[in-house]
């Protein structure tokens, strides 16, 4: 007779959540487009919240995570809009090049 084995989903869920954090963090750090960076932050944040849930954290901790992620997204979207208005671009390479030009002009004064 085969006895059923008890399998816990917890390690699988936790591993998936950690993978989300890693993918999101890499996207937020390495991608040039500000909107993609913001998406990366959201993925990393949701991954961390999923890890909290998978590891049995309290409701309070989950609410803190969601609230902070919401605040980050709101500020991030506002920044992206202002970047587009100020630079006419949301790509890090364009923005850095514009700032470098300003630095050169400042030094020349």
């Amino acid at each position: 007779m085969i006895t059923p084995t008890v399998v816990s989903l917890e390690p699988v869920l936790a591993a998936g959540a950690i993978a989300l954090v890693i993918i999101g963090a890499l996207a937020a750090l390495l991608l040039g487009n500000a909107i993609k960076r913001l998406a990366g932050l959201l993925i990393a944040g949701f991954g961390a919240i999923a890890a909290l849930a998978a590891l049995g954290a309290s409701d309070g901790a989950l609410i803190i995570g969601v609230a902070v992620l919401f605040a980050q997204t709101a500020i991030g979207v506002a920044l992206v809009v202002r970047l587009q208005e100020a630079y006419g671009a949301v790509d890090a390479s364009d923005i850095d090049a514009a700032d470098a030009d300003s630095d050169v002009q400042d030094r020349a004064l």
Partner: protein
Amino acid sequence: MSAAYIDLARAHAPLLLIVMPLIGAALMLVSGPARLSWFVAGLVASAGAFVAVDFALGALTGAQPVAAVGVMLHVDGIGAFAAALLAVVAALTIWGAGATLKDSGGAAAPLALALMLCVTAGWTGALLAGDLGSIIAAVETAWLAGVGLVAVNASRDRAALNGALRMLSLGGVGFALMLLGAALFARAAGTSSMESLALARIEAPGLASAGAALMILGLAVKAGVAPLHAWGAAALGRSTSMVTFGVGALGMLGALAAMSRVAGYVMAAPEIGEGIQAALAGLGGVSVVVGSVQAVGARNLLRLTAYAGVSQAGCVLLSLALGSPAGFAAALVQLVAFAAAALALYGGASAGRVQTVAMLDGYAQRAPLASTAITAGALSLMGAPLTIGFLGRWRLVEAGVGAGWWWAAGLIIIASLAGVFYGGRLIERMYFRRANSAYAGEGGVWRVALGPVLVAAIATIAWGLAPGGLLRAATSASLMLGGISP
């Protein structure tokens, strides 16, 4: 009757320390003109500093009982010491920012002051929070307020938006790491409450080590520790005094203090202590070297100060890595040294609206008091004898050699030699070169706003000459890592 209220306020001082700046921030939004907002913010921050110092003195000497103020707060030695330091620095920075209020734009100044108060409340909350989740919430409150403070500066210079975006990206990753770390650590320790953590039995040391390392890494991002400091130069390089004070001095100090507190708890567990020590020592060593090299090459004074802060943060991490009460006491002394030097340098530079090193030429003739402040800050960053910077590094060398960490002593010497180079360059330009531009700072009565900067400059020397009280307070705080009993 009033004595009863004072006793009640003293018993609930930790809560007041968090609530007062938040009430002050709310007042900023209705207080109208920039000058009035500044005055109100200064009063609120001064009251907070008074309460914090009184609370820390009472708590560290055991004279004042600490009330149990609910499940959210937990007072320990590092928290009490650093909260008082943070409150004093907040008061000095807000009063010091008075002369250059209009740099932020008249309408934006109250908002910038409100965000500075939110930064103070957030980091104070992180120092007094009762569980890991609350620490993360408080850290993010402070960090996002810092991002906002940098972004407000965009009305003057659009580069501030780039700095704010970098802060948001790196800080957001730091948040995810901290949250993940807290989840792993709490699972391994069976609790996330600071009160229970000190005595917790770690059931899965590998999980706990990973969690603690992630939390410390997340905080290291916020503290601007190399190589995680990419936001610093972008956020501070072309900023106003509000931003340099609020993010460069207050923010970095708060993050380093919060990291010291978290390290104190996680290193108390013998199962994971050695791994965390190695991680802190590695980060600290890299930060000392990278910060020193970047400061030597910097042409922008604000960036130079930020990089010097990265090097100083490395010294704090090396002190923490020792894991002993002597190491934690050395870290607290270094926090005081960092705060005083940052205030003196940023304040001295912002008084004359100096941004590049070249603008310092002949500065001593144009602004002798501001130059004195910069000199004191530079000497402290070098670790010159008779300054608080020397005292902090000496305590680290003493504790490091005692533990057989000769390499740490070598790194401190490298940091000091680099400090002689970049600090000496500032002094040479101020005193031995001809002025190439007129004084751009405020004149008349607003020169009074230089007062807090001079207080910081005097403190760097005074505590170097008579460090007894400071050393006793740091030692007491380091012996109360697990908490102060009610």
